Every structure is written in structure tokens, then in C-alpha cells.
């Protein structure tokens, strides 16, 4: 096992969540490999079945917990963007798009496993932030909560590839919080180990 093997092999089977919103078979080349030969249709079918088996009910519950918070983050960015300007606004728009991608990916994975994705709530208590500084502080807090939830969730997820893809989302949230902290005049990456309270 070496870097070359690592960097070649996972690319074909990575990105389950990245494509999960499009179809349940996404990222399941691991299973295609296990299936051996067969037509493209039967491979796809087998892959879909295997993916469904690979994600457990407990995983679905964890993913739904993360999805709940992603919905909250989407609501917070949506509500906060009109109160932002300049770079902060551009950043928040970018991050909103990425949170939507995360939510779609999580929902796709849940659906692909036969689960039911939690819908967004009709309203969220986001406090009453006034002005850019307070909105950024609120977004920072919500990103911190997301990080907390993902850090707790990742070791509990059963399939390794699902853990890895959820860690990809966690790392993106870490990037968000870095930019938000920089915009607030705080150190953007204060710890060598991402923590919820950065």
C-alpha cells in the first residue's frame, strides 16, 4: 500500500455523498468491484442494493441529525445575507450554496438508504442579530455547532466511506468558520485540531 495506490483507488469510489443527491448508486464502485462482471444495469442495481445495506438505521439517524443542523444553517445564512455587505456578503452567499449542497447530499444519502430525510422546520430561533458584526457572530456560532455535531457523528458512522465523506463536509465547515473568524478580526485557524469553539 502506498500513496499512489491510495490516490488512485479511492477516487473511483469517493464522493458518495457528492453524488448521493443525484442517485443512490453514486460512489458505489467499491460494490461494483465486489460484484465482478455483469451488465451495466445489473451492476448498478447491485450497487444500489449494496449501498442500501451498507448504511444502517443508526447511520440514517445520525445523518438526519446533521441534516437538521444544515437546515438551520441554511436558514441563518438566508436570513443574514441581506444584513451583510462586501466580502462578508460574498462569503455568506458562497457558504449558503455549500450548505445547500451538504443538505442535498445528506438527504440523498438518507433517501438512497431507504430512510426519510428530515424536512426543514418552519422557523428557527436565530436571535435578533442587528448589523454585520452580530450576523457574523451568529453564523460563527452555528458553524461551530455544525462542527461539534460532525465531530461527534463521524466515528459513530458505520461504513468507512461514509465517515470519510462526512469528514469532507466537516472540513468545509472548518473553512467557513476560518473565513467568518477572519472577518470578525479573530485568528482564523487557532488550533491544529479543529474544535467546535474555534
Amino acid at each position, binding site marked *: 500500500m502506498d500513496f499512489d495506490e491510495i490516490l488512485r483507488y479511492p477516487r473511483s469510489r469517493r464522493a458518495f455523498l457528492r453524488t448521493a443527491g443525484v442517485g443512490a448508486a453514486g460512489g458505489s464502485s467499491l460494490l461494483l468491484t465486489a460484484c465482478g462482471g455483469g451488465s451495466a444495469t445489473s451492476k448498478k442495481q447491485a450497487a444500489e442494493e449494496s449501498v442500501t445495506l451498507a448504511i444502517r438505521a443508526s447511520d440514517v439517524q445520525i445523518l438526519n441529525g446533521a441534516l437538521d443542523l444544515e437546515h438551520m444553517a441554511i436558514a441563518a445564512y438566508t436570513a443574514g445575507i441581506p444584513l451583510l455587505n462586501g466580502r462578508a456578503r460574498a462569503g455568506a452567499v*458562497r457558504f449558503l450554496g455549500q450548505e445547500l449542497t451538504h443538505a442535498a447530499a445528506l438527504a440523498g444519502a438518507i433517501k438512497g438508504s431507504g430512510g426519510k430525510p428530515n424536512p426543514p422546520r418552519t422557523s428557527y430561533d436565530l436571535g435578533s442579530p442587528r448589523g454585520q458584526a452580530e450576523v457574523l457572530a451568529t453564523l460563527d456560532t452555528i458553524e461551530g455547532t455544525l462542527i461539534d455535531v460532525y465531530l461527534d457523528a463521524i466515528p459513530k458512522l458505520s461504513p468507512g466511506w461514509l465517515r470519510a465523506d462526512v469528514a469532507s463536509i466537516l472540513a468545509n465547515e472548518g473553512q467557513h468558520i476560518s473565513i467568518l473568524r477572519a472577518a470578525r478580526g479573530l485568528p482564523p485557524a487557532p488550533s491544529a485540531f479543529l474544535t467546535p469553539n474555534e
Partner: protein
Amino acid sequence: MPDLDATAQVAAADANGSTRRELVRSGLAAGAAAAAAALLPPLLSPAGALAAPIGDAAVLVLALRAEQAVLYAYEGTLASGVISASTAQVLKMFLGQEHEHVDALTVHLERLGGTAPAPPSDLAAFELLLRELQIKQSPSTLRNEREYLSFLVKVEAELANIYHFAIEQLVDDQLIQTAAQIMANEGQHATLLRELISPGNVRRAVPRAFVGGAT
């Protein structure tokens, strides 16, 4: 070529303990020594997919080798003489965090009975490591701060890929969480390096909704 000997050595140590489950799972539990010897190449199917986890210690060795490449890259950049004082301050902080990663991973590895691999001894060894990481650019071609920073972004991106793989493979919960925290920190480094290259361009700084494992 890959340091398979070092990896196998660690795998042998690991096979006596925490990877027993993986060995059983992969049908290689007939004997720790035999399993360790057979552990690495047979795990790859003809299609290139892993048939079973490679063991936490072996994963840590891989992560440490990648971290050592990053350390060498940061140290070389700081010694290049083309980095401004303000950028150097940021890079020194990141270098310090990379050292923290190495320290933490080494502690975990030693608990598993393994030994951390030696860092690259010279530029040639570093370039070999880079090629293993699929980075074709030679650091000797870098001429200015922007090029050095772009190079560091590439190294950080490949490091995130290694952690993506590690998180998929690791079995120990604490190790998984630590690897996730480190991977996220590497993602932050990449973002802040891109911010140094193109200040205020958030599209460049945070280009994708997923970090690591990307093609």
C-alpha cells in the same frame, strides 16, 4: 518506491493487537507474522479496490509520511528567501500546527507498537515523496511567493486526500476523530493559503463544498 517495509513492519506490530478484527474479517488471521507479510499487496483487488482495512498503524504511517512531506514543504518555503514577513508569520503558524499533527500521530502510532517513519533526508527524497503524492512539480522550479504558496496548496490538498482515505480505513474511534480534526485543519490551511494568493476572493478560498477525496 513506497516504503512498504516500514509499513509492513508496523502492520506486523499492529497485527498482534488492534487489527486482529480486520485480519479476521479479511480471512488472514492464520498467523500474525504471515498475515503481516501478506497484508499489503493482496488487499488490492485487480480493480484497485481495497478488500479489507489495512490496519490503524499502517494508516498512521502513511499519514505521517504525508505530514513529513508537508513539513519539508513549509520549511523549504520559509527558507526560500522570497517570502514576505507577513506571509512567513502565517506559514510559521501552519508549520507549528503540522508539527502538532506529527506529534499526535506519532504518539498514537507508538501506542500501537509502531515507529514513525524517518522524514525525507534531502531534496531528492522529498521529490520522491511528492511524486508518490502525485505532485509532479519540483520545488526547485518555484521562483516567487505566489508560486510557493500555490505549491503548498497542492501539497495540502493531497494531504487532505490522505486523511480522507485514513478516516475511511481507521477503526479506532479516537483516531478517526483526531484524523477528522486534522483533515479539517488542513482544509483551513488550504483556504488561508489561497486567501494569501488572492485576497478577498472567497470563491477561490473555498472552492468546493467537500474537502479531500475530490478528483
